[in-house]
């Protein structure tokens, strides 16, 4: 990657206040200056290069060193629990030979031309920015070394940066980073070719997992500031009554009672955006008040007549029947090899199953919220967003302001899970501030707003058929996946899964089956469909990994052995040969589908979980393995189901191969959390529609995992890897194998096969149990 070759870097000696605008001034240093990347034409771009604005590795953009020696490192990706504000700055600090105790982390505002891509999604942050951040730190280190060498009049080869100072070994002279900062800032940034990166054996922080979370102390003391916590002088508070049906609109409203509610200031209609509404507000009626509570009370007093629009008949029960009907007839062929029809008809045995996965809502604990103000034609917003640049873009376009007149301050995110990739709530705040002549307005979504007006995980029926030979080995595989596409929010409903959705485990099945066909019949979208952590891998992995266990049962084989045999010997498969042109935007040669690595996580987790061990009656083990976000994961779930049908999960083992682990401690925490979320998805979470309206409203009827149903013991087994292996994703790949491993365990424990999620009362008792004690 050569990103900065022909940039003219401007070195400015500025105060740290000018560096990002919010720090107290002390002397200061490596400062701001960067230029847009210039694209050279035009082989296919992969990795960070495939994303808008790519990667930037310029230390003048990311590193400031004060004359007091304090090193400030910019994090340009959003922190939503994955630990990125620790992990990426830690990479810079390591190559910089900085003492972590003297490092501060500063959050970048939305500015991709300056910082590179900021879309915090797709499990990409460390994967795409590990290498650029290493170069960034190494370049800054080189500048400090050069400054010291110049001052001492010795060749740079004779000096070395060690723990926040530069040392001349021959004479034992030393200069601290603070002493060198000003001189270093006047030096040219070394070119990438001249950089000396550390050998992994020299890493101080990378790969160790010993650096504590930079935001941890604030998070446990209530000082951490999330989007919903913004406070501005004279700020007003808003909630919005939105159309109960996607595509609906306000016909008329009566705000007279609302305006009598104490502390209500004004009622403002927000125009809607007919489908496809992309990241724009749904519209509705906003109540502006002097506090959130008054706005909520005012909203309750509104009398609104809605027109429901084209999705008024959306009903999850009838829709499921339509999906099933669609899945039972041939559809668009998205992968085909051999002759499935012939092989099916000559198979010794045929097995067929259908799986259903409902809509779900991300429900981050911090609901969507944003604060906006407009002063002199310039809009500033403070918000928790995964999509800083898109937020800035949509706000500027909707307000009719130049892009440069919009500033997006990115706060901590109280969870994201894909919801906060869609900045509709920020546009709402900006529109309301505009309507209030620029007065600061904070829009808060209540939990009911979040559950009922979201961007939902798709809903899908997965229809699978296999033909087995006399030995029980599959000779034919047919998979029909039917699910409304995320693309439906961006344009006319394509009614088919996009390449990125198909590439999430639908077409890229690495099984050595000679006759294999994947079809994608049509499905219409009637709600806003959006990314939900792990996205289409959830239904695809659930169906495929359940079906493999069903085939093993049909063949009378051990599910783990059967799965490994289906995967076959270790090989590196070009994803394009499996009709996957997407490959998580990574190079198919750098990131082939390595079945050896998939085998290894399955074998590892089986060994660690003592697969095959004897368990008491009512208990069982289930296994599943899945490749997603260019990472390999396998899970073994141990389940216990009592006579009443109440389920508990004493233990889960997860093995993960994501290549090298930059911050293994945060990798573990992500995998633990993914396991818990996977359990909640499987046990109880579902969004259903009736008459176009979401039937759930809050955590009483949209149920997510709580501590009493979470696995009691989650053991994460990381596969060690050299740092020359390309990095995989971490945030999302832990979720998909959990639901199938759990349902496979239930089958082992009870003989009952769960094909429809959530599990809820399918075992005879409600899940989660009302007040379970799993001890």
């Amino acid at each position, binding site marked *: 990657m050569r990103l900065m070759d022909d940039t003219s870097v401007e070195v400015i000696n500025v105060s740290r206040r000018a560096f990002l605008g919010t720090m107290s001034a002390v002397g200061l240093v490596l400062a701001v200056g960067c230029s847009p990347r210039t694209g050279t034409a035009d082989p296919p771009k992969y990795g960070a290069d495939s994303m808008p604005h790519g990667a930037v590795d310029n230390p003048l953009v990311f590193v400031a060193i004060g004359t007091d020696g304090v090193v400030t490192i910019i994090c340009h990706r959003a922190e*939503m*629990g*994955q*630990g990125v504000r620790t992990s990426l700055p830690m990479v810079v600090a390591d190559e910089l030979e900085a003492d972590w105790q003297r490092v501060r982390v500063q959050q970048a505002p939305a500015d991709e031309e300056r910082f590179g891509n900021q879309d915090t999604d797709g499990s990409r942050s460390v994967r795409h920015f590990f290498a650029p951040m290493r170069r960034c730190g190494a370049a800054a280190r080189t500048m400090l070394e050069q400054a010291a060498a110049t001052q001492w009049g010795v060749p740079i080869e004779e000096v070395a940066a060690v723990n926040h100072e530069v040392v001349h070994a021959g004479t034992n002279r030393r200069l601290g980073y603070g002493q060198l900062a000003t001189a270093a800032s006047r030096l040219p940034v070394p070119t990438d070719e001249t950089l000396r990166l550390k050998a992994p054996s020299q890493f101080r922080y990378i790969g160790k997992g010993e650096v*504590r*979370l930079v935001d*941890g*102390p*604030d*998070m*446990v*003391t*209530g000082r*951490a*500031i*999330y989007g*919903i*916590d913004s*406070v501005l002088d004279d700020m007003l508070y808003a909630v919005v009554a939105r159309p109960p049906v996607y595509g609906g609109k306000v016909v008329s409203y009566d705000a007279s009672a609302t305006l009598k509610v104490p502390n209500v200031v004004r009622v403002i209609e927000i125009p809607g955006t007919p489908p496809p509404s992309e990241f724009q507000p749904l519209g509705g009626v906003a109540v502006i008040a002097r*506090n*959130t*509570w008054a706005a909520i009370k005012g909203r309750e007093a509104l009398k609104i007549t809605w027109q429901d629009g084209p999705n008024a008949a959306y009903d999850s029960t009838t829709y499921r029947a339509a999906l099933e009907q669609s899945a039972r007839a041939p559809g668009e062929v998205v992968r085909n090899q051999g002759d499935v029809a012939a092989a099916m008809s000559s198979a010794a045995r045929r097995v067929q199953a259908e799986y259903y996965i409902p809509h779900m809502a991300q*429900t*981050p*604990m*911090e*609901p969507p919220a944003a604060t906006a103000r407009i002063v002199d034609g310039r809009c500033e917003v403070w918000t928790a967003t995964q999509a800083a640049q898109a937020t800035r873009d949509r706000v500027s376009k909707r307000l009719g302001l130049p892009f440069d007149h919009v500033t997006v301050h990115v706060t*901590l995110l*109280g*969870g*994201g*899970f894909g919801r906060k990739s869609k900045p509709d709530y920020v546009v709402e705040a900006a529109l309301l501030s505009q309507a209030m002549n620029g007065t600061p307005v904070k829009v808060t979504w*209540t*939990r*009911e707003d979040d559950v009922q007006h979201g961007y939902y995980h798709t809903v899908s029926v997965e229809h699978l058929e296999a033909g087995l030979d006399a030995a029980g080995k599959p000779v034919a595989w047919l998979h029909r996946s039917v699910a409304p596409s995320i693309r439906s929010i961006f344009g006319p409903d394509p009614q088919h899964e996009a390449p990125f959705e198909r590439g999430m485990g639908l077409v890229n099945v690495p099984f050595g089956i000679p006759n294999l066909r994947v079809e994608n019949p049509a499905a219409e979208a009637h709600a806003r469909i959006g990314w939900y952590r792990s996205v289409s891998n959830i239904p695809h992995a659930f169906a495929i990994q359940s079906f493999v266990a069903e085939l093993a049962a049909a063949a009378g084989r051990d599910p783990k052995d059967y799965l490994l045999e289906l995967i076959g010997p270790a090989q590196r498969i070009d994803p394009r040969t499996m009709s996957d042109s997407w490959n998580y935007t990574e190079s198919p040669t750098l990131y082939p589908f390595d079945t050896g690595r998939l085998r290894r996580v399955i074998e590892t987790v089986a060994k660690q979980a003592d697969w095959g061990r004897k368990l008491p009656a009512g208990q069982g083990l289930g296994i599943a393995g899945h490749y997603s976000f260019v990472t390999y994961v396998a899970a073994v779930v141990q389940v216990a189901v009592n006579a009443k049908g109440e389920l508990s999960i004493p233990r889960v083992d997860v093995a993960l191969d994501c290549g090298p682990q930059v911050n293994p401690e945060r990798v573990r*925490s*992500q995998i*633990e*959390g*993914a*396991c*818990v*979320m996977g359990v*909640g998805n499987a046990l109880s979470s579902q969004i259903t529609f009736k008459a176009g309206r979401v039937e759930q409203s*809050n*955590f*009483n009827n949209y149920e*997510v*995992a*709580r*501590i*009493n149903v*979470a*696995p*009691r*013991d989650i053991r994460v087994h990381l596969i060690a890897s050299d740092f020359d292996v390309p990095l995989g994703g971490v945030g999302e790949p832990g979720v998909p194998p959990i639901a199938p491993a759990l349902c496979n365990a239930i089958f082992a424990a009870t003989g009952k096969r769960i094909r429809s999620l959530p599990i809820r009362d399918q075992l005879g008792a409600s899940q989660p149990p009302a*007040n379970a*004690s*799993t*001890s």
Partner: protein
Amino acid sequence: MQLEVNGQMQNLDAQPDMPLLWVLRDSLHMTGTKFGCGMALCGACTVHVDGQPVRSCITQVSTVAGKKITTIEAMSADAVGRRVQAAWIELGVPQCGYCQSGQIMSATALLKQKPQPNDADIDSAMSGNICRCGTYPRIRAAIKRAAGAGSS
């Protein structure tokens, strides 16, 4: 109306039925106490009233006048709270961190009532606090560590 929050008297002009949560957040700008559901379903808004854990989102402010309200902002000044916070840091409990104010308030209240809680006690005291990031295994371990009972 007067309210005693973290040992300080606060003079307020609030509607009596306004939930304590919004008084803390919008009137006093004490944003450590979080909004998560508004119906006492998620625990993000947990504070202590006279030492008892209470969901501030459904607690009308008029009902806590004259009582001692303690929020996450004061936990560092509380011996048990400090132990809980330290355990949270040592075990790397937080992910996004948003629910952790409420988790810490519930955990601290539990440990004050039961200094050596078992797993069933933890389930019972903590199942009202949702963490969407799924930090539950570490929360359980951190409570045990704060209790001095190890993290088995």
